[in-house]
């Protein structure tokens, strides 16, 4: 099981799928979810919807699990002498970019490098500081004429760092935010194969979270769930990251708490976690959780939400790090929570 989950995760980490260009990752997720669910479809904006029917009487209540599958990356803005100028898709700290291995999705996929020009070619004010994205270039190792033929403005660029297995069951790679959560949903669906659950489970690998939440705003509209659980990653403690927003790596999931979260759902899931001895931290999210939940909450007439997060180091770098154990914990917690949902559960979800 663990090995399968690891290879599933590594397969996802090796696939491109920038926001709005999710096709390659969606195919991989669909492949993994097809045998675990009853129906698969693709939303109008590219999210993957998978239905695993419950065994309660119809009409059954519905829970939506939302894990965004899109990746951050770069996009070509101009070409000079065969070198590509780029902008970001999603939040990228330009300081991580010099020397980064990338794949330019041109007329064909071209391996390349993000490069920092030598200092004498940069404006004097950036010689010593960090080099802003506008001065960085991508080199695909081809001569200018060939680059003009194969690459055009608007082509997207993925990180190409291969996934790494580190000590202590840690995995590193690009886009663990949020493929780690997709893997947790896969794990949850696997656990549900051998269990009874009254509720319908709608697993969603959502699109465009990193840019505009286009998936999270639209899938709940189509599915109309009774409540939703967003799965995402949160900040792990690590070098330079030690404040209240950070949590130990590999020591359990976090359950964000704040105005995006319905208190009754929160209470119910913590009860499940306590009963099963699944370690979790209460994560303060005073205004937003910065997950799909922020969008799902206000779809249609409003949808009660929960968030389950996994601590991850070095978020939005190509060497993000997460503990496999935490992925399994998130999947198990959600599976157990779903199995324990009575058909009339929503009647207990009250404001008090």
């Amino acid at each position, binding site marked *: 099981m663990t090995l399968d989950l690891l290879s599933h995760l590594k397969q996802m980490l090796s696939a491109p799928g920038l926001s709005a260009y999710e096709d390659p990752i969606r195919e991989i997720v669909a492949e993994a979810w097809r045998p675990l669910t009853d129906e698969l479809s693709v939303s109008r904006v590219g999210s993957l919807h998978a239905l695993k029917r419950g065994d309660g009487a119809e009409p059954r209540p519905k829970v939506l699990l939302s894990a965004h599958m899109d990746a951050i990356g770069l996009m070509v803005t101009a070409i000079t002498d065969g070198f590509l100028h780029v902008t970001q898709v999603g939040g990228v700290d330009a300081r991580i970019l010099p020397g980064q291995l990338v794949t330019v999705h041109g007329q064909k996929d071209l391996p390349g490098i993000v490069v920092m020009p030598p200092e004498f070619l940069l404006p004097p004010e950036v010689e010593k500081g960090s080099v802003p994205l506008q001065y960085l270039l991508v080199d695909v*190792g081809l001569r200018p004429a060939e680059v003009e033929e194969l690459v055009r403005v608007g082509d997207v660029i993925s990180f190409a760092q291969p996934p790494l297995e580190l000590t202590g069951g840690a995995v590193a790679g690009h886009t663990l935010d949020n493929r780690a959560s997709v893997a947790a949903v896969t794990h949850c669906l696997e656990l549900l194969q051998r269990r009874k659950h009254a509720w319908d489970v709608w697993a969603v690998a959502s699109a465009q979270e990193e840019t505009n939440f286009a998936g999270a705003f639209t899938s709940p509209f189509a599915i109309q769930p009774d409540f939703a659980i967003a799965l995402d990653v949160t900040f792990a403690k690590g070098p330079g990251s030690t404040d209240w927003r950070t949590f130990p790596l590999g020591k359990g999931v976090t359950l964000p708490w704040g105005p995006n979260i319905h208190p009754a759902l929160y209470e119910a899931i913590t009860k499940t976690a306590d009963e099963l001895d699944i370690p979790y931290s209460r994560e303060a999210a005073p205004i937003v959780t910065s997950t799909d939940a922020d969008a799902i909450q206000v779809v249609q007439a409003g949808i009660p939400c929960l968030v389950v997060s996994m601590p991850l180091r070095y978020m*939005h770098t190509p060497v993000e790090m997460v503990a496999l154990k935490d992925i399994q914990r998130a999947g198990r917690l959600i599976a157990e929570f779903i199995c324990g949902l009575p058909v009339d559960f929503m009647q207990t979800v009250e404001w008090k």
Partner: protein
Amino acid sequence: MSSQTQPSMKTPPEVDAQQMELLARLCNAMAVSGDEQEVRQIVLEEIQPYCDQVEVDGLGNVLATRLGSQTEKVRVMIAAHMDEVGFMLTNDEGEGLFSFDTVGGINPRQLVGKAVIVGREHTPAVIGAKPIHLTTAEERKRALKVEELRIDLGPEGSSKAKVGDRATFATQLEALGPSIRAKALDNRLGVINLIELLRHAPENIDLLAAFTVQEEVGLRGARVAAYRFDPQIGMAIDATPAHDLPAYDADVENTRYNTKLDHGPAIYLMDGATISDRRLAEWLIQTAEAENIPWQIRQPNPGGTDAGAIHRTRAGVPSISVSVPVRYAHSAASLIRQEDWAHTLKLVYHALTRLTPEILS
């Protein structure tokens, strides 16, 4: 002394699939200055059959001699440094996190967010960065310093590494169309070219091949190797930066490119450590012209090669350097054109075949 030295191939060396495979092995190996064992091992395996004598000296240099069969011979030392820039772990902070220092000239701005390998086992690790979400715009204008970064091997990393272990970038060699992307092309290109020159050594010279250590931290290996060999002529074969990128301001011409890709081997007239022997420069240029090999002069400016140590050894050694132009040296991913590599190897080979003692008269 080997009694079974294989005869020289007596043909010009070529760059083909076999050399690409060897270059991949050399570049993917780790040989941070002071611990060149992995590359030394590959070199010893590759050159043994073609040498009259091979030794590893007190500093770790591989010193190989291939004697020519002609009576009128020139003793030529060619040096290629085996070491690469990298890191050394300096403190175990627990839970797999190590502080580290750089070994050799690495711009700290090249380190953030990279995968690395640690120690002889090549244990995978990463150099992370604080998430963009937790930084301010003001903070992001500042470059991160080495002291702020950590090598992270994962939660149980302390069992896999210790203070003093070396580390380097994890990048694996890959061909990119007409180019090659790899770490440590500076100077595994010199190493592979020197291996090929030993295999194809002409008979009019005694080839004194020095695969040197600790070039990146002060040309230490070359100095003692030159003393031992006591050559008549010295040559460093290395990799030199190609800064042939556009300037941020399109109206400004880049006049400080150092070298350019696709312009062939870079012949040195002057760098920060050596003024090349003019007779040797003419010899290389005339060879290139005669053999129709593209060539360029490396722009005179700072920087240096093993020639900087060789030319001042004993009573002096007329010396020169020839390099393959390489973009983004001393970073996770450097880039060359395969043709520039092949032309460099060809130039040095043909120059050696034309060499007579008269060059120094």
